[in-house]
């Protein structure tokens, strides 16, 4: 486990990736959708960060923004994404391309379906490498492919296969191989195991975890499965309707979740303890177009107060982590 998780925020200044006040809006005909509205996240070297939230909370948008893949009608309206002092939001498409795969790579959602069906695995891995490095000879590329396949636990002869000949788990591991092919500093994994069965999921996540430790890569894991987060990440950020609700070490969050949404998320998980004891979160996620005033969670919050419908709570440091909730505004823990 990484030491940085136990430090308070003020000590976390050797951050690899810093997202500051990121805002991404989509300008549609129905109105402006505030998909991401002021996010602040830091990622240290070799750290595993989880970004958890329901569908529509904006986590995929954050991933896309980091990769510079936001397309119209979406736009980065404000904020910075600093990778070692380089602001990714200010880079041109050409400059951003130098960064992709090389320094930051993405395992997109449903990645196994985005493999080219008419191209062999070997060629798809090589394509990525060649885009950044024209120098390598064919034999060097081949041996790199075998090396990568081995590191994700696949046999060498997978290189010659086509995607449809592989199972879901194997395809996903090919995507992982592509993502690590150029030793990036950061890997963003967007729900890498959502379509996989639980046994395969564990294998793939263990592969990703092992690689993370071997290569000392930082990982951002996006998902909505709190169980997976508990097993895999060091720190966890909870997103709701485009904003951060809570962010802190995964141990702290599970031991004592502060934000009501985090509490409900954890409570909504069926566990193999007492039967029949898991409840959902009533209500629906708010529309991100006509944003109601105040805290966006207050209509569904069991502990909402009057102030919650008026003022948006700011992210404050409480007890070693950050929470955006009026319950913790006055330094008095309830």
């Amino acid at each position, binding site marked *: 486990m990484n030491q940085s998780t136990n430090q308070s925020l003020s000590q976390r200044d050797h951050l690899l990736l810093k997202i500051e006040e990121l805002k991404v809006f989509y300008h549609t005909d129905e109105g402006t959708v505030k998909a991401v509205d002021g996010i602040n996240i830091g990622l240290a070297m070799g750290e595993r960060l989880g970004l958890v939230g*329901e*569908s529509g909370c904006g986590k995929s948008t954050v991933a896309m923004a980091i990769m510079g893949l936001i397309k119209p009608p979406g736009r980065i309206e404000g904020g910075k994404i600093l990778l070692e002092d380089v602001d990714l939001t200010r880079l041109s498409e050409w400059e951003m391309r130098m960064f992709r795969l090389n320094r930051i790579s993405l395992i997109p959602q449903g990645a196994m379906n985005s493999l080219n069906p008419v191209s062999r695995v070997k060629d798809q891995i090589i394509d990525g490498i060649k885009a950044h490095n024209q120098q390598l000879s064919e034999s060097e590329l081949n041996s790199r492919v075998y090396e990568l396949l081995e590191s994700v*636990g696949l046999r060498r002869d997978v290189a010659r296969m086509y995607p449809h000949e592989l199972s*879901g788990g194997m395809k996903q591991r090919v995507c992982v191989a592509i993502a690590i092919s150029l030793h990036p500093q950061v890997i963003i994994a967007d729900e890498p195991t959502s379509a996989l*069965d*639980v*046994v*395969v*999921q*564990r*294998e793939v*996540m*263990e592969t990703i975890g092992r690689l993370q430790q071997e290569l000392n890569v930082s990982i951002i894991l996006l998902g*909505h*499965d*709190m*169980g*997976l*987060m*508990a*097993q*895999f990440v060091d720190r966890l950020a909870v997103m709701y309707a485009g904003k951060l609700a809570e962010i802190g070490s*995964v*141990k702290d969050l*599970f031991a004592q979740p502060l934000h009501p949404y985090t509490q*409900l*998320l*954890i409570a*909504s*998980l*069926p*566990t*193999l303890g007492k*039967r*029949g*004891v*898991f*409840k*959902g*979160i*009533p209500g*629906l*996620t708010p529309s991100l177009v006509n944003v109601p005033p105040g805290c966006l969670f207050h209509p569904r919050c069991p502990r909402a107060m009057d102030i919650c419908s008026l003022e948006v709570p700011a992210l404050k440091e409480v007890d070693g982590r950050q929470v955006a909730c009026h319950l913790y505004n006055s330094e008095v823990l309830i």
Partner: protein
Amino acid sequence: MSYLELRNVTKVFTGGMFRKTTTVAVDNFSLEVDVESPFIRALVGESGSGKTTIALMMLGFITPTRGEMLYKGRNFQKLPRKERQIFRREVQAIFQDPFGVYNPFYKVDHVFDVPIAKMHLARSTAERQALKEEVLRAVGLRPEETLGRYPHQLSGGQRQRITIARALLMRPKFIIADEPVSMVDASLRATILESLIRLNRELRIPILYITHDLTTAYHLCDNIIILYLGSIVESGNVEHVIKNPKHPYTQLLVGSIPWPDPSRRWGEGQVPIVVDREASGTDNQCKFAPRCPFVMPICRESRPPLFQLNNDRSVACYLYKDKPVAESSSYLF
């Protein structure tokens, strides 16, 4: 006589133009549904286990290669038209994809209007409206928020609950729920599963809950059947099977569940995974043998039958070969 039965059913899919490939999706599977005692039973298996094929066979959409599907004691293929119509009304299904079940061209009312019309469930427009509102309320939805909308205007959770309402409409005798919550957000799952529980308890309708997710099966069901590559490997009371799994595959499944507890790591004290998953084994060996950490010579010689461990537990594994063989491999609800 049971209400619905799959008797020694095997389904083989052949494919490919020149080099015929055969896949045995379901292998000598039996299941009996008795509507007098409405339990909720789980059929758990990963992808490729044959669970969806079983569901489709029970709905009469796929014919078994061997074995029979019996409705009220009669072979389904030979049912007269009238009986089939009754079958279509009494046996309902809830599917996995909360969006795919809606025709995007129509409002969601369409999924109610069609069966009401086809099965003559209402005699006037007023009656029809009342019926729709009744079933929507029964699943915890407000008619004014759901009727008259298009599918894309509602959330996944709402859409899935509407499918349950639709199933309710026809006062079914049996419901097959194929992964009803796997494509729905975690926080909405509980309400949907609660609707299913209420269907079962209040209306006394037996439900077959098909899933790959052991944890929801644990909370929803009383009994569980574990499926591996088309055959039953373990079955019994859900608490016992999950807390104390006997078959190595069940142990693997339980051990792979990610606990929402950072201090309890994956697979603590569980069976280590053997990653080689070449063939599923030839005809005459245990299908799990290539991956089993406890494999013995006998496992590669013949298929293990279901051994009856006690009143409600059976396991298809040679580790328990001292126990008696289960007399019928069909499971009553």
